[in-house]
């Protein structure tokens, strides 16, 4: 019987010729990372294991991204504990200011085809962009992985999503992600693997693809996976020969196959409460905002900064709005500084912070007061996510930038320009 890409990766890792959905297997881990929100518990749990040592310190990384740069004394102490532990066990630390775990792990070349990648962060699924099986786990489980280098996995069913067509002007991969979320809802794809492919995926650059796969978590997926092409190989400095590239068999069994044509896609905005609450922007235009936010692993890549700058060039942020920009990687900031994008954003009135998760969870930046409204490129908009009583609308960088200019939710196509 044929297998899907996810099944093939698991089978290969578990040394089995065949696996099928529902089966539980034990598999070795290729790469694991912790961030500063969840590492303290993992370290504590690890220390409870008698005589445990780290299974392979070259395959582990700590990323200090949630409370960066050391926002409170408690955060500073957590960072210190993490650095001490890392030093003791010879583990690499991605320091405060370097960026959010997922883009950093990608940039550092740890996300590669065929690998099993685990992170103590739910959005780890985004690293499936590189043809890897990437998923998030909790701190205690990560402590066990750290000691054993192995994890039990239940083979998920796979749903295939085929994306056809070309994006219209001012429509972005984030709109595609919010559109998929709107279609599948918050739990329809629980535990499932999704394979996302098609002409649209081929046309996007690597980071634009990540903007989609990262958001797939909000539909409950176990992992999301995309095909490996030349763009991916170039990004990771790999070749067809050096990488373990799996393709689905022709007779692979999918739980379902869904096709979408994105050619007529409108800008999508998720209304407060759930990221899956997507509506077309026309249904929410005119809602007044206090804050606009460009941030998080899925919404603050270089392409997001570029998109916002394109809208904001020669314009000003509305006087009643705080436009908070927190890029997701220091490399993106460097490139943006060189090309004048940062100048454009700051000139327009943006509040610019160093790379971190920051605004996404109201981690000491971009907190909302009760009754305040924010439009954001971040990943989540549950009640109270940025402060109790604050309302969060999720949208693309273009929609967020246009709304920042107008002081209310705005269709980015109204401000002209764009791709």
């Amino acid at each position, binding site marked *: 019987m044929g297998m899907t890409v996810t099944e093939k990766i698991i089978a290969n890792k578990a040394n089995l010729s065949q696996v099928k959905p529902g089966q539980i297997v034990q598999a070795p881990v290729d790469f694991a990372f912790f961030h500063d929100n969840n590492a303290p518990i993992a370290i504590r749990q690890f220390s409870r294991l*008698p005589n445990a040592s780290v299974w392979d310190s070259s395959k582990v990384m700590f990323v200090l991204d949630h409370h960066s740069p050391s926002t409170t004394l408690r955060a500073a102490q957590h960072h210190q504990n993490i650095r001490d532990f890392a030093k003791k066990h010879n583990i690499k630390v991605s320091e405060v200011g370097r960026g959010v775990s997922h883009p950093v792990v990608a940039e550092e070349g740890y996300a590669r085809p065929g690998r099993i990648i685990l992170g103590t962060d739910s959005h780890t699924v985004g690293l499936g962009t590189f043809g890897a099986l990437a998923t998030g786990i909790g701190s205690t489980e990560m402590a066990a992985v750290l000691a054993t280098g192995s994890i039990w996995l239940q083979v998920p069913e796979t749903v295939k999503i085929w994306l056809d067509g070309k994006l219209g002007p001012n429509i972005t991969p984030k709109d595609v992600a919010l559109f998929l979320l709107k279609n599948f809802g918050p739990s329809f794809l629980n535990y499932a693997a999704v394979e996302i492919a098609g002409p649209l995926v081929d046309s996007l650059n690597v980071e634009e693809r990540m903007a989609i796969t990262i958001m797939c978590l909000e539909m409950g997926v176990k992992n999301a996976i995309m095909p490996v092409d030349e763009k991916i190989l170039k990004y990771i400095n790999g070749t067809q020969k050096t990488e373990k590239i799996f393709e689905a068999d022709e007779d692979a069994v999918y739980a379902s196959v869904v096709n979408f044509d994105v050619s007529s896609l409108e800008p999508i905005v998720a209304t407060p409460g759930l990221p899956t609450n997507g509506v077309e922007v026309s249904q929410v235009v005119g809602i007044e905002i206090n804050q606009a936010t460009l941030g998080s692993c899925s919404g603050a890549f270089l392409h997001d900064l570029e998109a916002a700058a394109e809208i904001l060039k020669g314009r000003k942020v509305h006087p009643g709005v705080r436009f908070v920009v927190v890029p997701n990687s220091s490399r993106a900031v460097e490139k943006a500084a060189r090309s004048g994008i940062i100048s454009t954003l700051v000139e327009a009135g943006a509040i610019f912070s160093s790379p971190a998760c920051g605004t996404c969870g109201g981690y000491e930046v971009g907190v909302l007061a009760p009754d305040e409204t924010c439009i954001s490129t971040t990943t989540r908009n549950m009640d109270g996510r940025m402060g109790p009583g604050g309302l969060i609308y999720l949208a693309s960088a273009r929609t967020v930038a246009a709304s920042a200019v107008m002081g209310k939710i705005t269709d980015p196509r109204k401000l002209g320009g764009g791709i």
Partner: protein
Amino acid sequence: MGDFILKGKVWKFGDNISTDHILPSRYMTHVEPHELAANCMKGTDPDFFSKIQPGDIIVAGENIGYGSSREQAPQAIKCAQIGAVVAKSFARIFYRNCYNVGLPAINAPDFVLDVNQGDLIEINYTQGGITNLTTGKKYEFIKPPDFLVEYIELGGLIPYLEKQLKK
């Protein structure tokens, strides 16, 4: 070891209770049990911790634990001495995290449909049965695999591993 029995009062929640509802991001630097307990369910019911008794049970609809991988969410529930979480369905990482911290996570959609806030219930975790002592009705859920029962009996993944490593 005998059957693992839980008995407590039901606190009912709706669908898509996210990890932000269970433990808001702003408490994420907390690691001490009493701090986690005090902020349990803070995002949806700020007074929750002051109302509950040890052994009470959280009952929720679809997709509880939706959102982040933060283990602090089930930790907070566990530290608040909630006996179990019963739901129509669970978000993946949250489900795993529950077991890893030694908190039973039970899929029982039929039971959830019937139960009311405040009902007293008894769960036989080992055998996969729930009795609503208030209404007298009985329900079944899929009997958990032996290793998960052992997780619960020992208090989570770490004590389980400790035992394994000692063997």
